């Protein structure tokens, strides 16, 4: 199993952000992790990737316990986190050349892969911009390239398409589909149901820190399943508007 989480709980003082999440994601699948704002999606991703410590529960990624050997897990995963996790003082290119050797790539391999990724994401000409001076979209594409650079076995992407131009988003989708076809697992959180439905094979819907539904796309329209579990607020009179 690429991702196996059991009984994941995260509390911040009295507030429970994640209240016992169980997850399994198989190799070669793209899994959508959905839910409204504040449902605990990003906190769960942070626990799965070692950015936060679970209050309770266990995480196993690619057969390795995250708690027992976090560095071994990090070598096998790629992460596009919510806040992108870039160093303001490094250029976009330097982020990639910094990361490559840490994942065991040679300098030549790193430069070749970094160049390919940045060209494909339409970022190559901007590669010498410092992250602190780059636009949000440029920073996000860099974080995406960083996540892919070492050919991870499992990829975690928190809202990957938000703030990305359409052509780059399409190229990103192609890369993800290709990666999954070769056996990697892709774990995506997103608010954009249409995008997710076209991309993912399996999904989980999170609400109030708990998984309230999970299944395979294609059985029923994802929107129907989502709104069944996450009802839309309704009933207000907006005749004053417009």
């Amino acid at each position: 199993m690429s991702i196996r989480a059991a009984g994941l709980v995260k509390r911040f003082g009295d507030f429970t952000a994640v209240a016992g999440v169980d997850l399994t994601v198989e190799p070669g699948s793209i899994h959508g992790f959905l839910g409204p704002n504040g449902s605990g999606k990003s906190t769960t991703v942070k626990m799965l990737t070692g950015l936060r410590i679970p209050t309770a529960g266990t995480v196993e990624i690619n057969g390795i316990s995250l708690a027992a050997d976090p560095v071994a897990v990090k070598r096998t995963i790629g992460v596009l986190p919510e806040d992108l996790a870039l160093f303001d003082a490094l250029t976009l290119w330097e982020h990639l050349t910094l990361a490559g050797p840490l994942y065991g790539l040679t300098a030549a391999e790193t430069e070749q892969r970094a160049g390919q990724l940045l060209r494909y994401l339409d970022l190559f000409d901007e590669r010498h911009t410092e992250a602190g001076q780059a636009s949000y979209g440029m920073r996000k594409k860099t974080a995406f390239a960083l996540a892919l650079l070492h050919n991870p076995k499992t990829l975690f992407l928190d809202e990957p398409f938000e703030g990305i131009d359409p052509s780059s988003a399409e190229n990103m989708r192609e890369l993800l589909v290709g990666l999954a076809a070769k056996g990697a697992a892709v774990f995506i959180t997103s608010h954009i149901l249409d995008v997710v439905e076209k991309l993912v094979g399996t999904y989980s819907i999170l609400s109030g820190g708990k998984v309230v539904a999970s299944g395979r796309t294609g059985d029923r329209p994802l929107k129907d399943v989502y709104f069944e579990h996450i009802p839309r607020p309704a009933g207000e009179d907006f005749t004053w508007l417009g």
Partner: protein
Amino acid sequence: MARLGPLLLSLVKIRWRTLLGRGNAEITGEVLLLLGAAILAERVVAYLPQLPMPGVVAGLAVAWLGLSWGPEGVPGQFPLTRADRMLVRLTEVAVNPLSWVVLYVSVRVSPWAPLVAVLALFEWPVVKRGKRLSAGPSRWPALLRKDVRAAVRLFDTMMAGGIALMFVAYAVREPKMAVEAAWIVPVVLALSNSNLALNAFGTDQGTGFDRYLLLPMTGAEIVRSKTQSLLVLLGAPMALVSLAVFWRLGGAMGGTIVVECLSLLLLLAGWGAWTSVHSPYPMRAYRFSDGGSVFYGLAAFALCLAPGFAAASGQWWVRFVVLGLAAALAWQLTGAAGRRLESRRELIRARLP
């Protein structure tokens, strides 16, 4: 005016809640720093000529602009006229206690002192806007290059560089260098860079710290990388000072200063690694006061004095005892910090913006 009332009231609330809120030792540190300047002003005021009022006004104007670090983005969202914006700006400045400290210092000492300080601290575009400086040699490891590039934009590092250069200028102009200057300057260099040492992740901010956590590095490797950067950043001005001492005061005194510098580097590296993991805080480019725990800051101050006193003692064995203790402390604390970084990562992340 009534229309702007809620907005102005909100700005006052934001300012005071930030100032009085928990974990704002940073702002307290700045207030203490300026109060210290005010106390010094009382001491030296008799020796300074009173300068004309236009200078006071100019100094305050610049100080106000720089010190009004309020939430500029908030008023920017509202349909405000030019006059409204001016009123908002003045309110931000007026409710900032730092403005009043600057006013006091300006009046008591000299309008030009705060003018120059504020220009350097708050208004210098290279510092404030993070304009690109030298990238550093490309063969340097990227993490070191990143740390150096971020650090050279800090006022701390600029001040250390300036002090080292002034010392060299002093050595060039004065063949009979004062021995006291030789052992005091490395301590001053260490103290001026203590912010960088005590808060190693401050320049990365939270998002950069997250990247450290995502990279396949152990806590010990992360701490080691930070220590390496500190040694380069602080070692460079110290090397310059040591060379000047060798030149003017000879090998024996030069050797003493090298031992002193090594002791200072090791002490700051060790203590800094520990405090960086245990008491991180947000860091700004134009601030050189210690914004973390007061205890950790005072301890760093005391630790930095030890090699200076050892150098001044005239006893060679005292210097080597201090060096040995510094090495032992560095070894123990960097190791402990590396081990503890993993378990404290959430706390560190939560304290960095």
